[in-house]
């Protein structure tokens, strides 16, 4: 309706308000009429004022408040310890505040926070652990972003300069994102884009203090450079370079990107770790039409890589392996994946995926980075009346050198041998920002080769029921209820829990 009103009121009025003189039945030309005298020129030509930006485009506001209940049951005959609570009740939500050109045309600000308050105020064993248990009393306020940015504040030749200060986020090196309190300065030109950034890394979960796992908030800095050759040599290419320095670890990447607008974009990147080449990666995405895409990714890791773990990167001699997740050093491997999607017959949304990871460390030494082959497919159709039905399937087969009697030291051959997954979705919608009801059911089967005895498979099933209703264009209410099927005795004993349920009731206002 809004779109229609915009069309009616914003578009030029093409109605005939004054007809030209009567059209004669013959095509003889009409007599010339004297043109009205030209209007006198304006005394002072006033520059056109830019259209006023409505307030709603200058202000970013989102407040979400939710009530969460998570529950699990103990196993028969294996009671949970008395200090473990089987039900967790919490309040949670997000608060986002931001501006775009509100105080000054060149100034933008953004603050994104997330909060979680366990109602019991206790982080002691919960039946369902939460990452927020890392905080005292299970109560946390996370400031994910909080920055102010100036764009084009210098004007003239230096108009492309931008400056951002505060808590911010960078993505890039070695697939590692970094959140830091600091400063970033950059140049956003049409041909050259460059930036320098640095500051103190932020660990949102405060693990250093709680578990003594070493420094997780040291100095971090990096740079990025991008040169578009389109204007210089009329080629749709760009050269890129990125660096990252973190507590004695230095990462550098050189890349070449190609972008044929509307058809294909591709990138190849070579990454060095402390001066040694460790990774060559390439991505290619072909956009054959608005809805037909093909994505190919290749990734070769030549040698042992940076342990993606800010927690212990600064101090890996704590001896606290048992106090953290310990996957070991990323080992050499080759990864390839292909995803293709299209919409057939103007409605049948089709997705086909394939991937393989080939671990080629010598000797084979990691159970956590296995060799596997994966294939998947999905289809979804939208019906008149707002109904959508979709199914997605995926299967993954792992290749492990399984021995009959596995010595403890040979951990590389341990783990799952195959997994299969199926998801079905039924969605009824009255449209964006109106009403949506959705049911998702899923089943995941995992085949595991045990240390002793026959390999076993176990099945995990579950469902989600979700209802979202919009009170108006700015407020919505969401209710999600999820439950998991009975996992089977062996798996239930493994996690010491069954009967998982979760309820979320959320109210959200955005501006």
């Amino acid at each position: 309706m809004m779109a229609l009103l915009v069309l009616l009121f914003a578009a030029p009025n093409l109605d005939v308000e004054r007809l030209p003189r009567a059209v004669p039945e013959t095509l003889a030309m009409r007599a010339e009429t004297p043109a009205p005298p030209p209007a006198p020129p304006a005394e002072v030509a006033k520059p056109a004022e830019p259209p006023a930006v409505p307030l709603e485009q200058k202000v970013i506001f989102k407040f979400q408040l939710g009530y969460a209940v998570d529950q699990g049951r103990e196993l028969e005959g294996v009671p949970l310890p008395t200090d473990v609570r089987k039900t967790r009740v919490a309040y949670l939500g997000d608060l986002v505040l931001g501006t775009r050109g509100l105080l000054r045309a060149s100034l933008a600000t953004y603050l994104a926070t997330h909060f979680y308050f366990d109602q019991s105020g206790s982080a002691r064993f919960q039946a369902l652990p939460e990452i927020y248990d890392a905080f005292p009393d299970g109560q946390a306020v996370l400031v994910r972003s909080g920055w102010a940015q100036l764009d084009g504040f210098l004007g003239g030749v230096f108009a492309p300069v931008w400056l951002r200060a505060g808590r911010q986020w960078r993505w890039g090196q070695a697939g590692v994102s970094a959140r830091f309190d600091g400063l970033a300065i950059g140049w956003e030109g049409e041909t050259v884009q460059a930036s320098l950034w640095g500051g103190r890394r932020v660990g949102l979960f405060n693990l250093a203090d709680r578990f003594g796992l070493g420094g997780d908030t040291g100095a971090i800095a990096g740079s990025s450079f991008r040169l578009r050759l389109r204007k210089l040599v009329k080629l749709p290419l760009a050269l890129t370079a990125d660096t990252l320095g973190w507590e004695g670890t230095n990462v550098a990447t050189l890349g070449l990107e190609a972008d044929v607008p509307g058809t294909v974009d591709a990138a190849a990147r070579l990454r060095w770790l402390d001066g040694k080449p460790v990774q060559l990666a390439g991505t290619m995405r072909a956009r054959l039409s608005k809805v037909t895409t093909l994505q190919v990714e290749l990734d070769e890791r030549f040698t042992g890589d940076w342990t993606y773990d800010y927690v212990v990167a600064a101090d890996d001699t704590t001896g606290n392996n048992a106090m953290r997740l310990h996957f070991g050093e990323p080992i050499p491997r080759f990864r390839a994946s292909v995803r293709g999607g299209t919409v057939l017959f103007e409605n049948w949304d089709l997705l086909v995926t394939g991937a393989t990871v080939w671990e080629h460390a010598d000797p084979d030494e990691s159970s956590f980075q296995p060799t596997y082959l994966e294939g998947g497919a999905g289809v979804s159709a939208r019906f008149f009346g707002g109904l959508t039905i979709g199914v997605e399937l995926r299967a993954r087969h792992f290749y492990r050198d399984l021995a009959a009697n596995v010595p403890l030291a040979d951990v590389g051959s341990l783990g799952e041998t195959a997994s299969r997954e199926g998801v079905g979705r039924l969605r009824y919608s009255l449209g964006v920002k109106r009403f949506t009801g959705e049911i998702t059911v899923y089943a995941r089967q995992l085949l595991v080769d045990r240390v002793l005895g026959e390999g076993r498979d176990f099945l995990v099933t579950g469902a989600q029921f979700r209802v979202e209703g919009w009170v108006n264009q700015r407020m919505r209410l969401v209710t999600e209820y999820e439950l998991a099927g009975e996992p089977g005795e062996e798996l239930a004993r493994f996690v010491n829990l069954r009967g998982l349920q979760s309820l979320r009731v959320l109210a959200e206002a955005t501006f």
Partner: protein
Amino acid sequence: VRGFFLAFLGLTLALGCAPRRRDAGAESSAGRFPHEAPPHAQLGCTTCHDEAVVVAGGSARPGADDHAPCDRAKCHAAEFLGPPTTFCALCHDAVTPWREGETTLAAYPPRRGPRAYPSTFSHQLHLDTRRMDRRAGFHVGCGDCHAGPQRADLSPEAIARLAISGDGGGGDAPLPGHAACGRCHDRQPPTMATCAGCHASKRPATRQRRLITGDLSFSHEEHVSDVAGRAITCATCHARVAGQTKASQTDLPAIAACVTCHDDSKRAPESAAMSVCGRCHAGSRDTFQRLVAPRSHLAERFRPDDHTLAFRRDHTREAQADADRCARCHGGMSGQTRANCDECHQTMRPADHLVSWREYDHGPEAAASPDRCAVCHEAEVCTACHSRPPRSHSVPDFAAAGHGRVAQFRLRSCFHCHTPERECSGCHTGFSP
């Protein structure tokens, strides 16, 4: 590995260098009159096109007078005196000289292929009411040039004359021909006698595709007002036409423009709803097709067309190119490309992160695709939970026999935190459970 990368390079080059959909304007003019070929290119327009007919508003298609002037001795007399050849197909659909009435002219202008000497007509100039008032003493509306049956003040013959030859009478908002232009451009420059005033460009233009083809029907006459009696202006569907400066730009409405009204019961009757296929399509539609509509026929509010299953996985490019577009629907985003990945990925969980994900499922996925985890999570997220003993460790006999049952089931899980050499070998020598 090298082979994979070579294959990747080859695929990229193949897709990037593959010939793109050919522009109709660049198509060969085989089978069409070769305006650009000598000696035609050296001839003046009026050598073949009768100036008087043009000035009078006609199309002045050459050859109407027993093939004159094409059959001149210096031109194509030989072709006209000989048996029919492919030469005839430049103008005729069929040539059967021994039967009267069976030699038929092809439609002109042709419906497909490039348009030679395209008009430089600008909708923007002609719909600029102030300019028109100043220059011509009046301004025009759409119906003045696209005169159809809705012009009750015109006779059918006048309407047909105003339309471009071959398009008159059939459509109810036909393309205007020379006659329509001549009403004003008899003396207003460019005048009708100055061909190059409008047809200066020698570069063929793409002929606009036609939307109303096949079994589809449409009537402008039925789109004068909606069910509530509110007027439907031309701009309701052709919103951009007033800003278009080239004749080759034609604001043909996408089906989405139809959906805006035809999915709204306050504007279109139920009998004309988008789900009533037969309202526009003469061909039959079975029940299944009525249920599963083409996406373009669904209301705009049912997500953007490009948000497919594949898009859900691979949308980096779009997010980098237009962060504002993301922010329009996904609330709480800054609309800036420098951090919009984080802004969205921190608040929208993936579809598979359901209730059992945390307890049963995420381990194998994290082992297989740690890169996927790293899109949203930093390492602390893992450690926040894994730094504390699992529930299974809390059973009374875990240190004695209990841990053996867990280890036997999934020994690998022990090594999330423990190393065999450090924590296990103290009691277990070799492998003797």
